[in-house]
């Protein structure tokens, strides 16, 4: 800044700063105050927010098995039924014609029905009886 210019502008700047300082002073003196109700509300919020920390909720873990049972009951039932069918087919239907040789006569008729059913389901008779 040019020196001569500074000399001429210094005083108004100083006046302005001083005037502004007085505005600030008046504003500080007439600042809004916190209402007692709001102060109380804020303090109550503090106390309430501290409550969970002081009294943490007891961990009341529910037993695992009812939830487990509920989740797995249907798939378990389906798997059980499928397993039973599979077991029946492997254990009874497939070897049936071989067993049938030694079976009493009265069992031949029901086992024939089972054989017919399994034949429809898998489309193949016992490979041992296919005479390869």
């Amino acid at each position, binding site marked *: 800044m040019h020196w001569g210019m500074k000399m001429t502008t210094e005083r108004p700047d100083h006046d302005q700063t001083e005037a502004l300082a007085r505005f600030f002073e008046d504003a500080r003196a007439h600042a809004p105050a916190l*209402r007692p109700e709001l102060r109380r509300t*804020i303090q109550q919020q503090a106390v309430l927010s501290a409550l969970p*920390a002081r009294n943490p909720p007891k961990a009341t873990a529910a037993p695992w098995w009812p939830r487990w049972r509920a989740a797995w009951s249907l798939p378990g039932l389906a798997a059980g039924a499928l397993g039973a069918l599979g077991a029946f087919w492997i254990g009874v239907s497939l070897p049936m014609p071989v067993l049938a040789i030694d079976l009493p006569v009265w069992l031949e008729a029901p086992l024939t029905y089972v054989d017919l059913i399994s034949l429809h389901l898998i489309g193949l008779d016992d490979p041992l009886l296919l005479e390869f």
Partner: protein
Amino acid sequence: MPLEMRSDLDQATLLARVVQGDRQAAEILTDLIAPRILRYSARMLGDLTEAEDITQEAMFRLWRMAPDWTPGAAQPSTWVFRVASNLCTDRLRRRRPTQEAAPELADTGASANAQMMARTRARALEDALQQLPERQRQAVILRHLEEMSNPEIAAILMVGVEAVESLTARGKRNLSAILAGQRDALGYEDDD
């Protein structure tokens, strides 16, 4: 206990006591922080009701995050000022399309006593503050009305100290220009 003595207490320690359910610590922290937040928000927004909402919300957020407070990070008051500052910015953005209130100049002939005149001047300054750009307004309020240090303001506004100095200087220059025509009307010449 007088506030002057309370202010020496470490705010982070007080906050830890609030978490333990210490009602007195909550009172002390409220008295330390909430009035300043109210004044700041009221001057930022020019609306006391909104300022009260912001004060309550900012303090509530402080209580909520108190259990997770990291000691040595920042002063709780700085953190609350930052929250309040963001809340004010949100409100100002929401109301931007509407016209901001024009300064209400005092009827100088009717102002009989100095008290009323001083209140009118305070009002004139607060109206002038509303005409400043937001960042300048924040810096001027925190520096000259809340009398904070530049590093504190820098932490609240999340800028460098140099930026705070620049914002404050420009804000004051603009305020002087806005208030220049009102000095005589507001009775400053009579006081001299």
